[in-house]
């Protein structure tokens, strides 16, 4: 019989703080991934040209879109890695149970999403600075990052997307713990849906449900509900796993 009684909250808190530092590799990889994305933003920036035979005009577009997308990939892989055996076994250094371990993982993923969001949004200023130093003739240098309200909205939007992708990654990782076949099944399902049901009503509705939502509040609710569902399924999957001996 234990002499001290610890609450779930305090265990989760301690594990969360531990993970913040022991999973530093993830944060370091975030920096590398974002730097690569910033480089891609310059190398592969979109553009369009037109002319009247006398004057030909080419306009390149700079954006943090690639940084946000790469950050999504990063949070997705980080979420999958958190469910791997190597990471899960680290939790046994602590007084823990499956619930506290999963909750601290979720808290870590939310922190990762927030960190990724802030750095991705701030990378817009970095991209501006580089274009300024390169003396690129800009058509709208004052609109490089946008007004405060635009920044707040973009930050909220990016954060919600990262939370959603992180939850999906965690769900995929949990499924992969049942069977490694899921690693192949998920891309295959995505592939088949994209081709066979390319223009089907269901795919269109799914696409519109998330990516065409015009209200940030409704989008936030959708992300919250979806993430809770995905994390909930993941928690159920892990609770059915055998104990480590």
């Amino acid at each position, binding site marked *: 019989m234990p002499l001290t009684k610890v609450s779930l909250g305090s265990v989760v808190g301690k594990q969360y703080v531990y993970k913040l*530092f*022991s999973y*530093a*590799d*993830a*944060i*370091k*990889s975030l*920096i590398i991934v974002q730097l690569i994305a910033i480089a891609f933003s310059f190398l592969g*920036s*979109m553009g*369009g040209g*037109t*002319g*009247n*035979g*006398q*004057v*030909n*005009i*080419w*306009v*390149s*577009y*700079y*954006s943090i*879109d690639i940084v946000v997308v*790469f950050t999504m*990939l*990063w949070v*997705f*892989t980080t979420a*999958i*890695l958190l469910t791997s055996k190597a990471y899960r076994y680290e939790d046994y250094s602590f007084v823990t149970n499956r619930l506290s371990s999963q909750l601290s993982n979720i808290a870590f993923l939310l922190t990762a999403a927030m960190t990724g969001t802030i*750095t991705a949004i*701030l*990378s817009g*200023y970095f991209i*501006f*600075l580089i274009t*300024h130093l390169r003396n690129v*003739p*800009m*058509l*709208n*240098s004052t*609109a*490089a990052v*946008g007004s405060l309200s635009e920044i707040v*909205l*973009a930050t909220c*939007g*990016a954060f919600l997307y990262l939370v959603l992708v992180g939850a999906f990654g965690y769900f995929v990782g949990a499924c992969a713990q049942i069977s490694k076949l899921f690693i192949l099944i998920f891309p295959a399902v*995505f*592939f088949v849906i994209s*081709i066979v049901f*390319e223009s089907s009503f269901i795919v269109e509705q799914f696409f519109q449900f998330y990516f065409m*939502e*015009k209200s940030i509040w409704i*989008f936030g609710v959708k992300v919250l509900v979806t993430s809770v569902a995905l994390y909930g399924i993941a928690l159920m999957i892990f609770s059915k796993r055998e104990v480590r001996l």
Partner: protein
Amino acid sequence: MTFLMTVLTTLIPLLIVGSLIVIIIVFIRLWQTTSKKVISRKKMHWILGGYVMILFLSMIIYYLIPTNEEDSTQRPVLPRENWIIQNDENPIIEIDEKTTDYSIPELDYLDYIDPSLERGSWTFPYEKESIRIDMGYSDTGSWTVVTGRKNENDGEIDVTLYSEPYTVGNIDISDDIDFLNVDIGKDELYLYHPTEIELKYATYKKPFVYTQFRGGGFEDLDIRKPYYGLQVVYLEIPKDLELTTTLDQSIEIIEN
């Protein structure tokens, strides 16, 4: 063929994304095996803090850099009613906004042209009885020639070039444009563009995590629809000078 294209267009992005995910996973795994598992808080602060510091510094510099309103590439375009070569009471050139079709009705005066639209002026001494107006071959673009006769034979041809602004995405880029040039030969007046020019600009597109909720994405940018302004060459020729041309278009002559 269509099915194959669908497969390829789906498979390629999937493979790219999958490869990136695998690369990131391998990268993190390798890092774990080659470095200490738990790094100190101090070191962690330095790595993340240093990166965030660079980003914050960029933000501070962004707000410190003054925007030069006089820069041609940042100058907003004049209101359209000030552009032209027209006046409600006495129009020189009428613009059909819908079709952007230009027509020259009764040409009486050029007094109503906005002075800021003047792009150049030339005076050529010319004593012969006739002159031919010619254009450099394969010259395109929208332009027109308007001619007025002087009240006397002063032996000089005066040329003034006007042009509407050239705009890209509501930004006036006229200062970067090489407008029509004018030169005189033995018995010809040449109009020509110096060279074909290529202008490169860049712009910032708002991120999709913003445009999804407020619009203004790539599809809404009107930067892809530049406006090539109409150039008007206004000639003032001696009273009795005969005018001929090889130009495809007619030359409007203002007779006194």
